[in-house]
């Protein structure tokens, strides 16, 4: 049916057949992304709840285990991600103004920053591997906190791992957006895909903004 609708006079090529107008379509897709982000909040919410309970039960073990994380790399990554949010916001702005080259530049910058984040993250993972801080049979830690520190590191790997998977998906989305910007699908009238992808990217950044202090900065003031 879509080709008929597209052939109809006055219809924007990006307008799907079941919407009356591009405005309605944009409203629907934006609402759809917000609803999706709500599901993401609850997805991570289960993890944050688990974290909260064990942290309140085992504050000492969590503080000691937290000190094993590399706060310099963590902080660097936080800066990298916040910067990528800036380039993403600039990409949305450029898309709305129809500045194609600028849009593509900012998308590429966003992807590069996302890649840098993942690179630093894998260096950190490698260190944890070398130090035997991966939970399971090979786990090594000072005896007093051996059991509870495993819970901390289990949470650390699942939380940051799921966040990293979201980053990888985000970079994949940016690749599609780059392709759509390059082939002219994205125009000043039809910039909603960039805006919606931006919502997702910012969400993933915000998750990290919560993860960073919860995992890296426990009890720093006391030591």
């Amino acid at each position, binding site marked *: 049916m879509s080709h008929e609708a597209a052939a109809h006079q006055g219809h924007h090529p990006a307008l799907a057949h079941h919407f009356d107008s591009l405005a309605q379509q944009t409203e629907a897709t934006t609402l*759809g992304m917000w609803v999706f982000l709500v599901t993401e909040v609850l997805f991570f919410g289960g993890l944050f709840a688990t974290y909260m309970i064990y942290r309140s039960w085992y504050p000492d073990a969590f503080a000691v285990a937290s000190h094993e994380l590399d706060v310099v790399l963590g902080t660097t990554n936080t800066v990298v991600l916040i910067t990528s949010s800036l380039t993403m916001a600039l990409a949305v702005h450029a898309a709305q103004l129809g500045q194609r080259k600028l849009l593509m530049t900012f998308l590429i910058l966003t992807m590069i920053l996302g890649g840098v984040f993942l690179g630093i993250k894998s260096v950190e993972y490698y260190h944890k591997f070398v130090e035997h801080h991966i939970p399971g049979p090979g786990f090594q830690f000072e005896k007093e906190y051996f059991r509870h520190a495993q819970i901390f590191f289990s949470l650390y790997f699942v939380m940051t791992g799921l966040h990293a998977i979201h980053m990888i998906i985000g970079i994949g989305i940016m690749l599609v957006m780059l392709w759509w910007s390059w082939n002219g699908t994205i125009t000043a009238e039809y910039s909603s895909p960039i805006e919606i992808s931006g919502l997702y990217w910012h969400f993933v950044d915000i998750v990290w903004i919560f993860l960073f202090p919860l995992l890296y900065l426990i009890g720093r003031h006391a030591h």
Partner: protein
Amino acid sequence: MPSQTLYMPPRHYLNENYGITSWLLTRDHKRIGLLYLASITFFFFLGGAMAVLIRLELATPVGDLVTDETYNKLFTMHGVMMVFFFLIPSIPATLGNFLVPLMIGAKDLAFPKLNLASWYIYVIGGLFTFYALVAGGVDTGWTFYTPFSTVSSTTNVIPVALGVFVTGFSSILTGLNFIVTIHRMRAPGMTWFRMPLFLWSMYATSLIMVLGTPVVAITILLVAAERLFHFGFFDPRLGGDPVLFQHLFWFYSHPAVYIMILPAMGVVSELVAAFCRKQVFGYHFVAFASVAIAVLGFLVWGHHMFVAGISVYSALIFSILSFLVAVPSAVKVFNWTATMYKGSISWQTPMLYAIGFIGLFTIGGLTGLFLASVGLDVHVTDTYFIIAHFHYIMVGGALMGYLGGLHYWWPKISGRMYNEFLAKISAAIIFLGFNLTFFPQFILGYLGMPRRYHAYPPEFQVLNVLSSAGASILGVGYLIPMVYLMWSLRYGRIAGSNPWGAVGLEWTTTSPPPTENFAETPIVTWEAYDYQTPVEHHVA
């Protein structure tokens, strides 16, 4: 009804194009609804076969038909398939998919491709589960309690967990699609309070799907990480808490009960109005009761853990909150009966199911109050009382609503009528078979027969034989509709666009509807269930 020549429309969504790819790549919400219908029916009969074996085993007190290990796998697979692969998608993904755009006067759901994707995701999840069944099954119970599921069980926990995890995303996508569609795609004049109550219940259901399912997804992921990689989340040896798993699991899985029952309530509202020829009594109350059930449903999960070691104070709070759910539920039951009062009731098959629903749901709901009271719950926890209670809600409620809805909208879906006589007979058989199966289980449970055992003391045999006999009647009752509904597809009388003389946008278009649903976007100028105005005036 005025006499008119009934005809099949020359072009409709079923004959728009042919061939397997026209179905597998369709973006038409009506066809996707039918894809779901076929797949959930498959799982229904598979899960039903497990139930047959369970009831056969329990016909005698000794464990003679299957071993205890096989029995554990039977009730686990029965639960997993019926809950995650039949009941949760049943009404939303089939009737909801078919009807939401039709009822609001839209051409399709907001995201047709996502809708198709949700079906594929469901199928992939189903394949994992089916694989687990073929590979030898799983024995944790459908609740996957830790540490048994993470440490002890030697069966296929991971494939089933993956299946449940994956299929969860299909219900998230369905919920997301419905929410956006109901917000943004309503036809001109279709205000929130002109919407059929089915849509209110779909909206409330979608809220639960979107807010609850991600939590069970992450919980299952944690179980998988603990089982596969020996991570520590719930393992008591590391200081983890198995009860935390139960909290996270029931945070979704209790609201999931409302994912099953709310859509059935929506169906019953439609049926009662259509077959009493009256506006639903207290429309606003029924609408908000759906939302209230969805919200309250998120605050009662603790009543599954009264004996799992939660504190007396939280048990008290969860008990009070659980009692509160009875209020909106009772509002609905009272309003349906008030609608029937002085209505011109016609006793056609869908109405029989609606009446059955109201009665069985009432029993299921009232026995739920027993379980909400901490003292009584301690006595009947993990007995057949629980089994009977939730089957009254899930089978007596949700499944009755589903079958009622399927019969009511079948002429719209297929364009043809089923055999009314057979349909009435099988509705009666299902009602009788159901009660014979599950009512004795209330008594069994109260007398102390525990759930999940394949052998039991001989003094329980009479009631168990009654239950098993009922199950065989119930099984026959489910097979008959399969036969006459299939038969009607080819030989049924042509239905015409509005065989029931009902109001509602879905009855203003042809049966079966065209792919784009309406020749022109309808403009709604009447209230929901406006039976005062003659039906002919509702043509948009």
